[in-house]
């Protein structure tokens, strides 16, 4: 208790408080600009921490991390260009909501849910870090496969009335995820003899292309005046208590999922957001409304990705294993101050650990204010005519795609997926399944193949594991139920009938 109080007093002194506030603001801004993200921002800030007290330096890095995880959702909601990979799913419902004139509300939900998700994970992290880390380490390939499969079954719900089209889109995404060198055998797949495709397709340029460039091409074809998009003044509206209560189960479920997934080493906030969204769809009474701009579609991924950010600190602090890209960078922050993250840190530097927990808690509170400020700054761009805004978005999309690995190939991937996105939109194929499958495809395939190898080709090893088997069972039941209910509800549903109204 004394250590807790000491840490609290330490963090509440002026310098750490300023570092938390400044770090969160910088993180939100970095996250909001496509092409810049929290791993990059955290890495760039490490040299600035050299001259600081170790605790202050680490507080700054974790604050940037928290802010950056949320920041990406601002541009995802306003322009359909996610500023960071973990905000990819937020655009599914955030952008349609913004298009319908409720951008302020969408931003408010994103900010509040990010804050709540982050606070939940920090509380969990500070209370039961070592125990959670042990559970996470018991996850093996069958559990990862079950997790990926559970998220992929979301495709059946996302298609709405166009289930076959959604499955085709999902299969194309899965196929795109196989491009490149097979991680298990090093065989080239669908590279057609070239070097460019060897590393596979990065999903961020694909996502930017399918959503942002596809939208620009659609608007160019329709003509700006004919799109009917109303550009109104945007001011962030934080959700009222009653609105939050309506979302309570979505938020709670997503916070738990996000924290748990965040704890799994190497999975991270992006997968957490996809899984959180898929579970929100699965548990919803109106799954067909997802993708049209509903609060649950924003609350789920935003709660999840920020909860995962906190969760990812658990393996870092307790085992010294990074749970995500940014936490890997934060390890560098520990090392430059002569510390090795891991169980010994709790024994040797308990004050530092608790200071970090408190700083992350405060960072999530500060995120409410920083989020509103940055959202207001960015929302001013929405007042601009699309004939001006469209080319600006395209420039940011290009720089965002290029900045991932400073490679023009990624920009071409963005363009190709832009054309694919245009075709899909034009012929009423849902785009979300394509992206979800592209993100989760490798995890599903490799965990299946590795798991089968580990189990000596015995399928029952996948089914009879307590956690993996339960996830698979729930997935199968919900998939069968979804398909059955759709076929029963509408005989023509499998026709992929177009409902262009």
């Amino acid at each position: 208790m004394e250590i807790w109080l000491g840490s609290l007093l330490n963090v509440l002194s002026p310098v750490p408080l300023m570092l938390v506030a400044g770090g969160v603001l910088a993180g939100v801004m970095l996250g909001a600009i496509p092409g810049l993200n929290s791993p990059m921002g955290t890495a760039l800030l490490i040299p600035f921490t050299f001259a600081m007290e170790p605790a202050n330096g680490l507080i700054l890095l974790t604050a940037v991390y928290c802010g950056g995880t949320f920041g990406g959702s601002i541009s995802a909601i306003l322009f359909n260009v996610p500023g960071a990979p973990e905000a990819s799913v937020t655009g599914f419902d955030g952008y349609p909501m913004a298009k319908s004139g409720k951008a302020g509300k969408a931003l408010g939900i994103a900010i509040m849910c990010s804050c709540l998700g982050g606070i939940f994970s920090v509380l969990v992290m500070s209370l039961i870090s070592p125990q959670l880390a042990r559970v996470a380490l018991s996850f093996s390939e069958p559990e990862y496969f079950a997790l990926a499969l559970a998220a992929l079954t979301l495709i059946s719900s996302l298609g709405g009335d166009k289930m076959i089209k959604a499955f085709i889109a999902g299969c194309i995404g899965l196929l795109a995820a196989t491009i490149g060198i097979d991680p298990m055998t090093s065989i080239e797949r669908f590279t057609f003899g070239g070097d460019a495709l060897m590393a596979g397709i990065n999903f961020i340029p694909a996502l930017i292309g399918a959503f942002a460039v596809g939208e620009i091409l659609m608007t160019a074809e329709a003509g700006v005046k004919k799109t009917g998009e109303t550009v109104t003044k945007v001011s962030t509206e934080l959700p009222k208590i009653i609105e939050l209560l309506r979302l309570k189960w979505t938020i709670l479920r997503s916070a738990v999922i996000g924290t748990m997934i965040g704890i799994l080493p190497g999975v991270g906030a992006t997968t957490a957001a996809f899984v959180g969204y898929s579970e929100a769809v699965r548990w919803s009474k109106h799954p067909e409304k997802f993708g049209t701009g509903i609060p649950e579609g924003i609350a789920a991924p935003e709660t999840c990705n920020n909860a995962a950010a906190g969760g990812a600190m658990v393996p870092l602090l307790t085992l010294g294993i990074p749970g995500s890209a940014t936490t890997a960078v934060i390890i560098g922050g520990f090392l430059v101050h002569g510390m090795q993250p891991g169980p010994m840190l709790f024994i040797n530097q308990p004050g530092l650990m608790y200071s970090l927990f408190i700083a992350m808690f405060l960072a999530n509170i500060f995120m409410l204010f920083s989020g509103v400020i940055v959202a207001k700054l960015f929302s001013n761009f929405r007042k601009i005519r699309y004939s001006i805004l469209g080319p600006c978005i395209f420039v940011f999309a290009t720089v965002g795609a290029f900045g991932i690995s400073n490679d023009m190939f990624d920009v071409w991937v963005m363009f190709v997926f832009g054309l694919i996105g245009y075709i899909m939109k034009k012929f009423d194929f849902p785009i979300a399944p394509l992206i979800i499958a592209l993100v989760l495809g490798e995890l599903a395939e490799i965990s299946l193949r590795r798991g089968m190898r580990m189990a000596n080709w015995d399928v029952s090893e996948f089914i009879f594991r307590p956690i993996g088997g339960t996830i698979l069972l729930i997935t199968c039941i919900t998939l069968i139920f979804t398909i059955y209910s759709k076929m029963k509800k509408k005989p023509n549903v499998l026709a992929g009938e177009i409902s262009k109204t």
Partner: protein
Amino acid sequence: MLKALLKSEVIISAICAAGALYLFFETKAFGNLNVYGAKLGPDIWPKLILVSIMALSVGLAYNTIKGVLKGIIPASDKIQFSAANLRFIAAAGLIATYLALLPLVGFLVLTPVMMIAFMYLLGEKSKTWIFSIPFVLTIGVVLVFTKLMYVPLPRGTGIFLKISHLLY
């Protein structure tokens, strides 16, 4: 029947199925490895996906044709080339040209030109905006990304490289 066959869903299904069939044959190149991971080799997962695409495409085409013949789904409209199609082709062409020239001309010089052309294409009338925003945005992006974040935006070659070196 012809109207049903010309329905966009049927055409797209045919393209998807044909593409999947072609790629299915490509998977033969992955080989049947008799090494670690042989039972679920590198070809199994793609083959599974490609077969699914073919089956789903056939299903989509069949249901669409059936729907058109029964009158549940409206038959395809006449395919005609419009100004909208031309705008799409121009926008896609502009983007492709920009990306192709970017390594040669560099971000600093080419981006304002592309933005001006794009604004005209999207119907922007205000010359003040057309000739201010592209330059302000380009310089802002270059400064933020190259000076603060060390992202090496394309500089171009020859004379364009020298121009780019003035700023980054």
